[in-house]
C-alpha cells in the first residue's frame, strides 16, 4: 500500500532524513518510532505531499507522491502533530469544510461528517466552537477530519502527544479500531504506545531507519538485558582491562568521568554483579558503588536509537 524508497530530505545544509525506506501493506498499522527531531514528521510530510523529498521516491496506494500527488492526497487522511483546526469554526462546519476540500459530493457530505463524528466520538461537541474545546477534543476533531471521505491510508503524527492518560487510552483504542479498514502509519516517541497499537514498528533515529520489526520481536530483543551501574576509582584504561576479564559483558558506557572517578554502565545478558565486583577489586581499583539498573522499554529504545546511529 505504501512503498517508501530511499527518501532523503535536506533543510538547507541539514539532512533531516537519509535514505529512509520501508513498506506498509494494506490494512496494517505501522508505527514510526523515534526521538524528537528524528525525521518522523519530515517522512510523514513527504508521504502526504506537503513537501517533496530532496531525493528518493514513495508511492501511496500505487500513486507516486510526486507525479500523482492529487491522487495520493485523495486517498490519504492526515493528522499533523498540531491538529489543523480553524478555532473560530463550529466542529460540524469545520468538518463540512474539510469534506468539501476533499471533494466529497454534496449529497454525501452530511453522511460523511456524521460518520467521522461517530468514529472520533465527538457527538457531544459537534455544535461547539473548536477554540473552546479541550485539548483532547481538539485532537479528536483533528482525527475526525483525517477520517473524512473514508481514506485508504491514514497518517497520524504523534496523535496522543499532550493528552491525559485517559484520553491517550481512548485515542489508542480508536486507532486500533481502524485496523483492517484503513492502512495506518502513526508516529510516536513513546514505545509502549507503539507496542499497544501497531503491528510493526519502524525505528528512526537522526533521519536513518535503525530497526524495523514487530513490537514482539523488538521487546524480545530487549528482554534479558541487565544493566549494572558502577562507580570506580581508577584510570579508564585500567578499568576497561579489569572488566575484560568478565565474560558476558556486551557494552560498556562511560557516563561521567571526574578526574579519577568513573561513572559507568555495563550491560550483559545475565546478572554479573558478583563477577564485576571481583574483577575490579582483584585489579586493585576502588569499587565505590555497584547497583543493578532495571532497564525500561524506553531506556532500551533510547539506547537503540543512540547506539546504532553512533556505530
Amino acid at each position, binding site marked *: 500500500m505504501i512503498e517508501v524508497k530511499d527518501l532523503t530530505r535536506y533543510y538547507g545544509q541539514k539532512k533531516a532524513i537519509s535514505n529512509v525506506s520501508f513498506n506498509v501493506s494494506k490494512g496494517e498499522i505501522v508505527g514510526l518510532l523515534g526521538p524528537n527531531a528524528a525525521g518522523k514528521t519530515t517522512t510523514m510530510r513527504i508521504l502526504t505531499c*506537503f513537501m517533496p523529498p*530532496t531525493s528518493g521516491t514513495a508511492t501511496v496506494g500505487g500513486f507516486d507522491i510526486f507525479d500523482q500527488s492529487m491522487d495520493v*492526497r485523495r486517498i490519504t487522511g492526515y493528522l499533523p502533530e498540531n*491538529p*489543523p483546526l480553524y478555532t*473560530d*469554526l463550529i466542529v460540524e462546519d469545520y468538518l463540512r469544510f474539510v469534506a468539501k476540500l476533499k*471533494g466529497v459530493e454534496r449529497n454525501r457530505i452530511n453522511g460523511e461528517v456524521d460518520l467521522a463524528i461517530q468514529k472520533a466520538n465527538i457527538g457531544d461537541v459537534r455544535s461547539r466552537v473548536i477554540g473552546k474545546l479541550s485539548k483532547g477534543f481538539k485532537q479528536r476533531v483533528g482525527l475526525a477530519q483525517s477520517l473524512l471521505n473514508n481514506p485508504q491510508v491514514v497518517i497520524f503524527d504523534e496523535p496522543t502527544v499532550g493528552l491525559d492518560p485517559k484520553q491517550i487510552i481512548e485515542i489508542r483504542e480508536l486507532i486500533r479500531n481502524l485496523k483492517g479498514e484503513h492502512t495506518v502509519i502513526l508516529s510516536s516517541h513513546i514505545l509502549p504506545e507503539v507496542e499497544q497499537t501497531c503491528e510493526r514498528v519502524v525505528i528512526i533515529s537522526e533521519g536513518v531507519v535503525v530497526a524495523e520489526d514487530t513490537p514482539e520481536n523488538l521487546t524480545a530483543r530487549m528482554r534479558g538485558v541487565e544493566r549494572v551501574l558502577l562507580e570506580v576509582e581508577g584510570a579508564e584504561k585500567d578499568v576497561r582491562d579489569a572488566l575484560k576479564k568478565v565474560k558476558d559483558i556486551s557494552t560498556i558506557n562511560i557516563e561521567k568521568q571526574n578526574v579519577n572517578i568513573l561513572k559507568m554502565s555495563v550491560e550483559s545478558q545475565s546478572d554479573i554483579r558478583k563477577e564485576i565486583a571481583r574483577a575490579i577489586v582483584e585489579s586493585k581499583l576502588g569499587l565505590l558503588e555497584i547497583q543493578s539498573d532495571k532497564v525500561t522499554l524506553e531506556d532500551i529504545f533510547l539506547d537503540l536509537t543512540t547506539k546504532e546511529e553512533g556505530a
Partner: protein
Amino acid sequence: MRKTIAIFEKEFKSFFYSPMAYVVIGIFTALTGIFFYLYLSNFVESAFMDQMRAQQYRQMPQKFNVNLMLIRPYFWNIALISLFTLPTITMRLFSEEKKQGTVELLYTAPVQSIHIVLGKFFAGVAFYVTLLIPTMIFQAILFVYGNPEFLPVLSGYVGLIFLGSAFISVGLFISTMTENQIIAAIGGFALSLFLWVIGWASSYAGPTLAPVFEYISIIGHFEDFSQGVIDSANVAYYILFSALGVYLSLKSIESVKWRT
C-alpha cells in the same frame, strides 16, 4: 471550482467570526461617513452662499454640479481610506493559516494551489464590497434630495472594486510570505503605498521613465473611473495587476514547499 467556492465561503465567513472585521467595518464606515459629511456640508454651504450672493446682486444662481464637487473627490477619499484599510483584511489570509498550522490541511488536501489562492482572493474582494455598502447608502441620500448623474457613481464603484482588488492581490501576496500578521499588514501597506506614489515620481523622471511610472501607478488608472469613464485600458490594467498578484501568491506558496 467547487473547492474554490468552499474556500471562498469559509474565508468570507471567517472574516465575520473575528472581531477584527467589525472593527475594520466600523472604522471604515466612520471615516467614510465623516468625509461624506464634510464634503456634503461644504457643498451645501457653497451652494447656499452662492444663492445668497445671487439674490443680493439679483443674478441667476450658479449651477453646482454635485458629481464634480462632491462625488468625485469622495471616491478619491474612499480610495485613500481603502489603501490604509485593506492590508488589515489581507494580512490574515495566509499568515494566519501558517501560524495556526492549518496550511498543512490545505496543502495536503486534494486541492490545487490555484483554487486556494483564488478562493482567498475573491473572499477578500467580497469583503471589500461589503465595506463599500455603507458608502453606497451615503450616496443614495444624494439621489433622494438631489439629482446627480448615476453613471459616474456606478463607474466610480466599478473603479473602486478594481482598485481594491489590486490592493488585495498585493496584500495576499505579502501574506503568503510570512506567518506574522503584523508584518503582512505593514508589508502589504508599504507595497500598496509605493505603487500609489510611484505616479508622483513621473513628474521628476526623465522622458523615458515618466510614462512607465505613470502606467505602473495603481491610482493613475482610477482617475477615469471617478470621472464616469470606464476605459477598457484601465480595466485591463487592474485585471492584469490582480492576476499578477494572484500569480505571485501562487508561486510564493508553491516555492515554500521547495525551499530547503
